[in-house]
Structures are given as C-alpha cells and as structure tokens.
C-alpha cells in the first residue's frame, strides 16, 4: 500500500467523506478506519490490485472506498438501511464495489451473489463475531486471508476485553483457521483487536 510522509493513502477520486488529500492521494486516517490502523501497526498487511474482497459490516462505505481504491472488487455487505444509503452513494462513483443488503449472520441469503475471495474482512458490532467469520470461511480461497476486527465491547461487556479476545482466538483456531498475527488497535481504537487468520489449503473441506 502507498504511504506518503508516514501517512497511509489510497489512490482514487477524493471527496467521499471530506477526507484530506496529499499529493493527489486520499489520506486514510487510522483513527477513523480500523483497517488503516492495522496497517500502520502491522506493515505486512497489504491490498493488491488483483484481490477480491468480501467486506462484512460495510457501514457508510468510508473504509470500503479506500479498499476499493486498491483492489479488483469489494463485495460490501451491510444490514442497516440507513448506512446502506451512504454505501450506495459511494458505490455509484466506484464501479468495483458490489453493495449487498444483507445480514452477516445469514450468509445463505446473499451467497448466490458472492464469489470466492482472497480477503475476508469483518467489522461488525455483533455479539457472535467469531461465529460470523466462521460462517464465511466457505467464501475464502485456499491461501486466502481473513481479518477480524473484534469489537470486544459488542461481544460481552461483562467480560474483560482480554478474555473476549482469548476466547475468540480459541474459537477461530478450533474452526480450522490459522491465526497469523493479532494485535490491539491501540492507540487508534480502544478495546478493539485485529485478528489476522489464514486458511491452509489442506485444512479446508
């Protein structure tokens, strides 16, 4: 991914959400976007031009728009009608975003629209975040990557973020995913962890 003066940027027409521009590139603020934060903390995270991405929890499409600047196509799933409006507006300018109105807990409802992807990215405010990711493993190509942005506060506010994190890691590992790296998104986002998983070609059914 492209960096200018230590700032992450993405190539594409600006004016999606009043983002700053730097030398013609769109500045991708790590304080607003968790994916940007993750890439600041872990520079090995990369988006490439041939990637197909399934993005769960697309929300208003701000992060989606940056991802779309880099990759081939983004399947952007969002459930709530209100952010969906903004997502549609963003998709109008970026023809490689496929906006999907759907509930991430029910992938069967939109499965016919989605193809196999290289990257599965999930950022949803739901209690069962590990379960949602596991349900989407069938969409992941062998050798593909899954990134879970774990909102520990949405899982269970009675447990400590660390406990939720540990439990999530166990569940993902038990489902045949291999945790590549994981980190907390401090100082950009509080009580949020990023878990990067890989699928082993052999381990998949």
């Amino acid at each position, binding site marked *: 991914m492209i960096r200018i003066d230590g700032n992450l940027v993405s190539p594409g027409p600006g004016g999606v959400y009043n983002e700053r521009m730097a030398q013609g590139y769109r500045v991708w603020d790590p304080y607003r976007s968790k994916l940007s934060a993750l890439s600041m903390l872990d520079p090995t995270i990369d988006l490439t031009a041939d990637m197909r991405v399934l993005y769960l929890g697309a929300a208003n499409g701000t992060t989606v728009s940056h991802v779309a600047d880099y990759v081939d196509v983004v399947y952007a799933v969002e459930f709530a009608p209100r952010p969906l409006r903004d997502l549609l507006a963003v998709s109008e300018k970026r023809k490689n975003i496929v906006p999907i109105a759907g509930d991430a807990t029910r992938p069967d*409802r939109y499965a016919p629209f989605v193809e196999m992807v290289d990257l599965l990215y999930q950022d949803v405010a739901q209690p069962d975040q590990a379960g949602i990711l596991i349900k989407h493993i069938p969409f992941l190509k062998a050798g593909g990557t899954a990134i879970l942005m774990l909102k520990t506060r949405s899982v269970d506010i009675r447990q400590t973020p660390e406990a939720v994190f540990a439990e999530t890691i166990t569940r993902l590992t038990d489902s045949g995913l291999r945790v590549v790296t994981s980190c907390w998104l401090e100082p950009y986002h509080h009580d949020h962890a990023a878990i990067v998983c890989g699928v082993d070609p052999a381990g998949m059914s």
Partner: protein
Amino acid sequence: MEYWFGSIDGTGVCRPADGGAPELLARVRSLVTDMRVFHPLTEELIEGCGIFSDRREYIRQLREVTILHAREVIADAAQEKDAELLQMVRMLDQMDEVINLLTERLVEWYQVTDPSFSSKSRKGAGRRILPRITKSRSPPLRGVAREIEELGEARKRLATEVSRRAGSVIPNMSELVGGLVAARIMARAGGLTPLSRMPGSSVQVLGAEAALFSHIRQGSPSPKHGLIFQHRRVHNAPREVRGQVARILAGKLAIAARIDFYRGSLDPDFIADAQERIDAASGGAQ
C-alpha cells in the same frame, strides 16, 4: 448449484435465468441456499458459463441486481409506518433538551441585567421566567427569549401530533399508556419490530439502561421501571406496589406491541382485560 445469474450443475453445464435485474432479483430472493453444501462462484465457473463477455461486464450486471436489492431494502425501511413516528419522538425529546439548555443560559444572562432577580426565589420555574424576560429592556435578550417561547410552541404542536399518530400506528399500546409514552417506549426499543420481539421484562426497564447495567455489573438494586414510570398508573401507585404495577403493565404492553405489529388494529377485548388487571394491581390509583 444456484447463483444469481442462473444455475450451474455438477458437470459445469450452465443455465442462465431469464429476464433483467428485477426478475433475477426475485429469483435470488426465492432461492434457499444450504451453506453446508454450497460452492461459491469462482472465476472459472463464471468464465465457463460464457454468459458474460468479460469480467467488467459480469460485475456491471451483478451490481445492477444488488443495487436494486439495496434500494428496495432502503425503501421498505422508510415505508414502515413507525419510521416517521420514531423520528418525531426523537425530535421531541431533543427539543426538550435544547429548550431547557437555552432557557438555563438565558436566565444566567437575564440575572446580570436585573440585579434584583434571583432564580432561587422562583424555584424550577424556567418556563415561568420566560414571559418576564420577554419584557426585558435588552432587545437581543428579548429576541432570544421570544425565539425560545416559539420553540416551546413548536414542541407542543409536535407532542400533539406524536400522540395522534401513535393512536393509529400503535393503537393498543397508546390505549394502555397514552400516545406519548407509548411512542417513547417504541422509539427507545428502536422501532415497532424490535419492540414486538421484546419480552415484557425488557419493556419494563426500557429507559433505565444505566440502572440495569449497574445492577448486572455491580449487583446494585434492579430498576423497577424505566420509561414506563412516566405513565400515571405507575408513578401514582403507592411505593410498595409500584414495581408490581410496572411489571404487569410492561407485560401487557409487550402483548399490545405484538398485536400492534402483527394486526395493527385496536383489540377492545384485550384492552378491557388488560386495564382491569392493571387497575387491580395499582389499587385503582389515578
């Protein structure tokens, strides 16, 4: 295997579905996909079909269908009859906040211009101070006071409209606790759909989230009532039975919400029955 543009069988033979985006969407909606055996689309499958001239064309046509779908979902959500009522209630509560805030600030200002005035002597009478301030000697002060009064009028009209609409959107709930309280409860639940799926015990503490979570976390006493307290039969009930009244009323409200959601018309038998039960618990308190 069924996909959005048609079906592909085990030997790779592809059957495109007929029609444009609306027909394709209707077809996808009718599909039942079993994720345990489903194979998502791959580039090879799509190319093997030969329906699309190239990848760009594939994405273009797919987008047509999914964007149509998203538009329908958005339109459906906006059309639900509780959507506007929800916004009106939230506006009403926000107006209350704003009016109080502005009045507070205005009184501070007025105190400086009128040394003989003390807000202590007229306890909690922000509203009653307003007419006095509109007669102040300072033109800008008078102007702002008049605007706040105007805002108060708008708030009153909005409140009337909220109760009127609640009477038609959530008739059974409105009959039990009055339109305004019924609408507030619905708004706090996030709409009629989520409210209709809520157990009575949740309805009882809607609006008392802070107390509820402190109860769950620290074991402080559980809240007896949330928004429901605004209803007279709850706040007028003797202390000893107030929790009981709140519980019974909440249970009936949860049923009323379901009738409102699924049937949408007033059920006089249910109402008569519920009122009797609630009145019995509250000891006929007015």
